[in-house]
């Protein structure tokens, strides 16, 4: 690798995108994301220290959204790698465009014929072709997948590795290598080093335990369901047309429902959906009939539904 052409980066050096933790909070808020002090601190540190952030927490509390918002306020492109069972290096890093390579060799058959036409011996012909093989293993025939594009990118990016817990532990080990030095080796081409340290955000729903190594490498952020005040703020921000009284009632009811030991408690995104649908229905306040008819926005399992319906009095009585 030609060291001159690639600016070296020092992995211990981070960026200076934010002035302070308050600055992070401010800018997230103007991008319509309510970041609590803890979230803001971790984002600030990640950016300063050039460290990946591992976000854990129940589904729908805004883990993915955080990465998107971060890309937004940093005005960096977001590269997303969605993990799933069976994801392997080929799909995450790079693949050769075999068909294209093959097509080119077919098209260039004659040229190749010419090239070796006057070769005196077989070893000579092989040597000549060997002299050209770089032509077929060049970036032209390489199709970069999310990880390689994040590393190759000219401009700094935000790399979101979503639901890492869905991928196999083996993939995690491979990812760890990439995340620790931000370089990747493509055997035919050599090592590709990152020009910029990407801001990396990993999310996990805790479907399985992640390896210690990965956790060690990352800053850890646990996002739980928001406190009532915070949730109220989120609803006000995202559904500005909602009447104040209704918003409070919604938050109180949702917080109660979360306490009911459901199979899947309603997340922030679901309470937002609910608030929106209540606004569309032009509701002024919550009553039993209204809640019952719109409950499916909030609770997704049959058993949970029954449970909430059974406890409706409690949910509403205390919330009004």
């Amino acid at each position: 690798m030609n060291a001159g052409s690639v600016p070296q980066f020092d992995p211990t050096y981070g960026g200076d995108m934010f002035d302070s933790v308050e600055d992070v909070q401010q800018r997230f808020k103007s991008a319509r994301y309510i970041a609590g002090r803890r979230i803001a601190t971790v984002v600030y540190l990640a950016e300063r220290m050039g460290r990946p952030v591992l976000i854990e927490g129940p589904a729908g509390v805004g883990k993915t959204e955080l990465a998107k918002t971060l890309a937004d306020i940093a005005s960096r492109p977001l590269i997303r790698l969605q993990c799933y069972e069976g994801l392997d290096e080929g799909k995450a890093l790079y693949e050769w465009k075999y068909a294209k390579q093959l097509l080119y060799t077919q098209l260039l058959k004659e040229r190749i014929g010419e090239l070796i036409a006057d070769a005196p011996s077989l070893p000579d012909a092989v040597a000549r072709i060997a002299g050209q093989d770089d032509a077929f293993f060049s970036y032209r025939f390489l199709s970069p997948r999310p990880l390689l594009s994040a590393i190759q990118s000219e401009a700094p990016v935000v790399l979101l590795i979503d639901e890492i817990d869905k991928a196999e532990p083996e993939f995690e080990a491979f990812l760890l290598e990439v995340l620790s030095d931000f370089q990747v080796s493509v055997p035919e081409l050599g090592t590709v080093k990152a020009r910029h340290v990407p801001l990396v955000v990993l999310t996990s729903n805790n479907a399985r335990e992640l390896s210690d190594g990965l956790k060690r490498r990352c800053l850890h952020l646990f996002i739980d369901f928001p406190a009532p005040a915070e949730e109220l703020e989120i609803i006000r921000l995202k559904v500005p047309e909602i009447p104040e009284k209704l918003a409070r009632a919604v938050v109180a009811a949702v917080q109660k429902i979360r306490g009911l030991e459901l199979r899947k408690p309603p997340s922030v995104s679901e309470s937002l959906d609910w608030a929106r649908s209540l606004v569309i229905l032009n509701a002024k306040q919550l009553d039993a009939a209204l809640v019952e008819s719109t409950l499916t926005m909030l609770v997704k399992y049959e058993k949970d539904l029954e449970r909430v319906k059974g406890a409706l009095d409690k949910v509403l009585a205390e919330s009004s």
Partner: protein
Amino acid sequence: MDERILEFIGDLRRAELRISPSEALDALAASAEIGLSDRETFKSSLAATLVKESRDLETFDRLFNLYFMDLEALGEGLKKALGPEDPRVQDMLDTMMDEDGLELDDLTELLMRGQGSEMEMAIRAGGQNAGLERLMYFLQVGYFSRKISDRFDWSMIERDIEKIMKMLEAKGLDPGQLARIRNYLELRLEAFNRMIRQHVERELERRAYRQGEKLTREVLSDKPLFALTPDEVAQMKSVVARLARKIKDALALRQRQEERGRLDTRRTIRKSLQYGGVPMEVFLKRRHRDKPKLITICDVSDSVRNASRFMLQLVWSLQECFSHVRSFVFVSEIAEVTQAFNNYPVERAIEWALKAAPVDYHCRSDFGYAFSRFANAELESLDRKTTVMILGDARNNYNDPQAWALRMIRERVRGIIWLNPEGQWGWGIGDSVMPLYTPSCDIVKECRTVGQLVQVVDQLVHSWWRRGR
């Protein structure tokens, strides 16, 4: 500050958080970035770098509050303790010192005028060499409080207070006022001593946090299962959960190391046909291991119930290591309880299996009957990927052992593993029919304690299922 953070990390490690040196360095770097001006932010920065499991957050919070005290709140508390008269007397002292040339000893001045935070700093400095690292029991609190208190030079205090009172008298205050002021000064003296004691108590709590728990756990791990009290059972649940996680982690690591294969010629050649016989894509032989199926059969009669409980918990926590887990319980009638595990969280399912499954819990164990029923009903569903794990003491109450049933089961499956919660010396004595069943089993192990149980399951997961069984 770095030293204090490192000391704090030591506390966390004592409370069984795993923190690597690189994470400790991260914490130092992070706190340097953040600074100390805001307590919450500082706390978040330590949490982000040091705590990587959400279940450890609670321990972290607690220890953080013990170690990095909220000095502002402390000052407020002091003010409250001293009552409403505070500002006036304080002002008076201030003017006396500034204008009337009152000279006081350093300590007196600290006690009479200092803020809560300043006092705390002084106490902490005093405690530096007081040998607090030997502090381990509550009985030592008084001793160490005195020891710290002795580090301050109290000789001038009395004289200084008299000096203050005289000066106030000279100013023409009436006796009632004077008494109140004297009272106030003494209150502050007392408050300082109380603060010393609190400091020592906090130190104790910080050092001892979770130590007791650790000790009980070690003791309980070696206590025979049948002798565990309900309280102890509850404590051991979390221990078993932790150990299950450990086994799982180790397993994931090994799978990773094993899956490097050699060239898979068949697939490579087949794929090369697409490219006119050129092996464009190379396939490696992945040692593909089918996850094993597991059937557990647990005796749930009174004598071995605890053992069954922990085994069920362990097996269901390790679920991901198997493609399919089914569980049966029996006393004499046998019933499948898999459904409960699919519907309820593990804890609740186990309670259900041990108390409410459709078997008669009050009859005497009859292994023979249970096995023959199982063989009749389930033989068809067994296959060579299945391992049967039986937990029971094989005390058959002189019923027909029906060892043929177990032999029949053995012929259909990969293997039978028998875990016996009774000491090996008892097997075959009295109504124990263990020797009759042993020939049908591939592995027979004693597991009388949680420690043994975990060890056995760990071994099984690593060696028995290792060769793709």
